[in-house]
């Protein structure tokens, strides 16, 4: 990280002071990188986009094992590198979009490896009463077993043998060994990690804990020790003091029923600066999209955002209980609360960047391809009928509604093929990618590997978009995504938004900038269209790009030909800017409409798409925000 700042002095504002303090402890790495010969193949001072998945479960997770998943961490890495592995429903799976650049296996730390142990007939765990019927291959029984174990975990009544340290150590070692074996600097990066699975009263507070290097604690700190993420952060601080660099990435705020970004501490006490620093020091980025829904914003929170209704999941995690509180469960809303708190209280506990990941429980990193979708919970949703995309019992129409007694079908239907992690890093290595996450130079996509650049400054050269050294100048005289703009000397900030399509996916339709700001003590938001495809100009009356006419033929999922752009590039100056108003800006770029996974399933089955589901989606990419602070 320190190297990066030296290379781009203009971007120093991009890292909060809390972050700088925590990373300063690695002088050895800096010294190594100073020698040009240490660069890996593909090293680029202007940074490359790398795509990955930082949320991956294998058979070592208690739930994945119950779902009949038997693939190991090694299998997960093989899959990410483009190999074929087996799915627990009996077919082979493989990425169609090609290998990923980086992956972390993040199994649930609670009772890690214990279910595999319990399934072993020779193990004493196998004779415990709770194990009875736990390892069925019948999806209905799997569902019941899952619920039983989750409930036992919730009440802390799982037999203590499940928490045997020897079992956990063995699994934790397998995870570390697989990461070590598969890490291949310059080609493929692995991180050691795990998921901290806290959910008070079923309200999701999960986060993935990612370690920078092979130096990791003896065992994970799990939600069995404490459900309060604040205690996790304290533990992470102690690890850091012991030379173990680490960060956590919260996810599925949509399933927290407003808890993830509540405005008090978990124990009910008021937040303060120390709390805010602790949180931001440990959680610089948030996973805003994954298979269990997208947590950017909810239509009820952003009624003026026509694209807010993207892969929305409105139930608790792992059961069909409806969410009632959306505020506190979506990141745009949280970013707004954060800047308001900065104004009123002097600190911002919600100043995070964006990243995506899959949350696959099939040991299949990056498996968020709509045309190649097998969902994520093993044998319970591996087949289209199990996820409600084709009629039940071989019927050809939707006239007879499919029974959904436990609500699983309803939940699986609402899941999306979404969640890829993007980072801008000099090279494909642990150091470079981890540093990118630390400085929030990260982005999230709904699956396709589109690239987005996002920079801000007050005075970019007029011709910057045409200059071949665009990125160099953009870095030198501005800040990249995740950064902080200096206070304005009267001028409104300019933003460079530059996006490129994924060659294996659709064309781009429109580029947008989402702004949140504080006006007279109230946090507000707006979505600006800033560039349109197909020679179109923004309609001054609506502020929107006109319809570019891109449609999808629902009989075969073919998109309308010759619509949309390969590249979108614009320089935008905020017309509503007020120097005294605190604000944040992030980019969102949309593809033309394309078939949702449920429609692909239906076409392959020769039946009409489920009328309850949207037949098409608009794939998208979100950049991390850039923050603006008025001078005091």
């Amino acid at each position, binding site marked *: 990280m320190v190297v990066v700042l030296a290379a781009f002095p203009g971007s120093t504002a991009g890292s909060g002071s809390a972050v700088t303090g925590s990373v300063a402890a690695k002088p050895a790495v800096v010294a190594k990188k100073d020698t040009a010969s240490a660069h890996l193949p*593909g090293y680029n001072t202007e940074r490359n986009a790398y795509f990955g998945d930082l949320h991956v479960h294998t058979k070592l997770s208690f739930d994945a094992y119950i779902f009949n998943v038997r693939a190991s961490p090694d299998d997960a890495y093989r899959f990410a590198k483009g190999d074929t592995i087996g799915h627990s429903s009996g077919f082979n799976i493989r990425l169609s979009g090609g*290998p990923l650049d980086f992956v972390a296996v993040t199994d649930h730390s609670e009772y890690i490896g214990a279910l595999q142990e319990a399934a072993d007939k*020779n193990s004493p765990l196998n004779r415990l009463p709770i194990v009875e019927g736990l390892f069925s291959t019948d999806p209905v029984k799997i569902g019941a077993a899952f619920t039983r174990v989750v409930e036992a975990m919730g009440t802390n009544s799982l037999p203590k043998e499940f928490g045997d340290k020897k079992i956990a150590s063995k699994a934790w070692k397998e995870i570390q060994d697989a990461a070590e074996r598969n890490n291949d600097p310059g080609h493929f990066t692995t991180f050691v990690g795990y998921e901290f699975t806290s959910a008070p009263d079923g309200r999701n507070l999960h986060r993935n804990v990612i370690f920078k290097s092979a130096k990791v604690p003896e065992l994970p700190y799990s939600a069995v020790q404490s459900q309060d993420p604040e205690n996790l952060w304290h533990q992470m601080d102690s690890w850091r003091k012991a030379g173990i660099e680490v960060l956590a990435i919260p996810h599925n705020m949509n399933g927290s029923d407003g808890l993830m970004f509540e405005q008090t501490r978990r124990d009910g006490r008021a937040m303060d600066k120390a709390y805010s620093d602790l949180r931001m020091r440990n959680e610089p980025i948030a996973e805003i999209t994954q298979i269990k829904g997208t947590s950017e914003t909810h239509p009820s929170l952003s009624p003026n955002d026509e694209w807010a209704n993207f892969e929305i999941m409105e139930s608790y995690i792992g059961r069909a209980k409806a969410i009632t509180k959306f505020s506190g469960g979506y990141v745009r809303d949280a970013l707004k609360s954060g800047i308001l708190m900065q104004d009123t209280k002097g600190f911002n506990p919600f100043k995070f960047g964006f990243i995506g990941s899959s949350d696959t429980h099939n040991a299949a990193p990056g498996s968020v391809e709509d045309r190649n979708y097998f969902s994520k919970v093993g044998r319970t949703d591996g087949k289209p009928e199990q996820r409600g995309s084709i009629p039940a019992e071989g019927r050809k129409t939707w006239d007879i509604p499919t029974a959904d007694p436990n609500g699983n079908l309803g939940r699986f239907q609402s899941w999306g093929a979404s969640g890829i992690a993007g980072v801008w890093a000099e090279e494909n290595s642990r150091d470079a990618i981890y540093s990118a996450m630390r400085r929030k130079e990260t982005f999230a996509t709904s699956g396709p590997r589109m*690239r987005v650049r996002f920079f801000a400054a007050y005075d970019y050269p007029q011709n910057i978009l*045409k200059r*071949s050294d665009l990125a160099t100048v953009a870095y030198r005289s501005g800040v990249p995504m995740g950064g902080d703009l200096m206070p304005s000397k009267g001028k409104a900030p300019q933003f460079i938004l*530059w996006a490129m399509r994924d060659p294996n996916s659709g064309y781009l339709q429109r580029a947008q900038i989402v702004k949140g700001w504080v006006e007279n003590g109230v946090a507000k938001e707006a979505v600006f269209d800033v560039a349109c495809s197909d020679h179109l100009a923004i309609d001054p009356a609506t502020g929107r790009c006109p319809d570019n006419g891109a449609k999808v033929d629902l009989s075969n999922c073919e998109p309308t030909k010759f619509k949309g752009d*390969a*590249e979108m*590039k614009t320089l935008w100056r905020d017309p509503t800017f007020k120097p005294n108003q605190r604000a944040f800006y992030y980019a969102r770029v949309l593809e033309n409409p394309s078939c949702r996974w449920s429609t692909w399933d239906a076409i392959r089955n020769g039946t009409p798409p489920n009328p309850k589901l949207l037949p098409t989606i608009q794939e998208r990419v979100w950049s991390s925000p850039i923050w603006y602070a008025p001078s005091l």
Partner: protein
Amino acid sequence: MTESLSKQSPVRAVIVRAGREPLVHFLLIGALLFVGVLVGRSLQRPVVRIDAQELGQLAGYWSTQMQRDPTNEELQGIIHERVDEEVLAREALRLGLDKDDMIVRRRLAQKMTFASEDTANLPEPDEAVLKAFFEKTKADYQAPPRVTFRHQFFNSDRGKDQALARAKLALGKVASPQGESLGEPFLLPLSYSDASLIDINKDYGQDFASALIRVPLNQWSGPIASAYGYHLIKVDSRISAKTPTLDEVRPDVLAAYQEQARKARNATFLADLRKKYRIEINGIPQTILK
């Protein structure tokens, strides 16, 4: 004798008389023997020794978990626990509780596996052996073609024909000294050094990747279509797909050889072990040595 007796106190008299009794001698000797055996036994009691090194280790584990050093009282607790564990374990061994216990058996088997691996030194194959092994496994080391090239980009979002025309025009000019920046800014790198063709294929598509192999070296060629628009390309150098020589991948080959040798040794070790036993399953003798 009677006289002298009468001079003594009666108690003393009894003791003296008793001292002459053979039965008393017998009892005394017995008691002495008994005490002696007791003392001897106590000296022979098995010892539980926790040395300073282990104590430090135990305190270390504790500190890692609690993130602070233990107090004196807590240290006593740790010691107590360790001692209890030890005496319980020994008592269990004495009573034969380790027999027919799955966990104990597994742990022992695991330890034996480790031990047998550690004692066996990995082989240092001679050149001929390693070479033969490499010849057999060559395909594992094949490297994709690598290219060093620059390119110029012409966006075709505003019309394919115009982009193609701009690219062709540029191709005519790039021969001139100042002609090398006619292309447009591009979000991906404009120059690649020693890039794997697999990576290029992933980002640009098959047409572009195969053009990099086809076009003449050191001159601008094109236009080539990609998923983004048109490109002019200039390839400075190419390394075709190749199988490396043994010297280039020697450490990997050696590691693979040793891994394979290790597996073979473990298998032999187990097979030999099995030969030392007669194996009966359900009362029926087995011949499972293969």
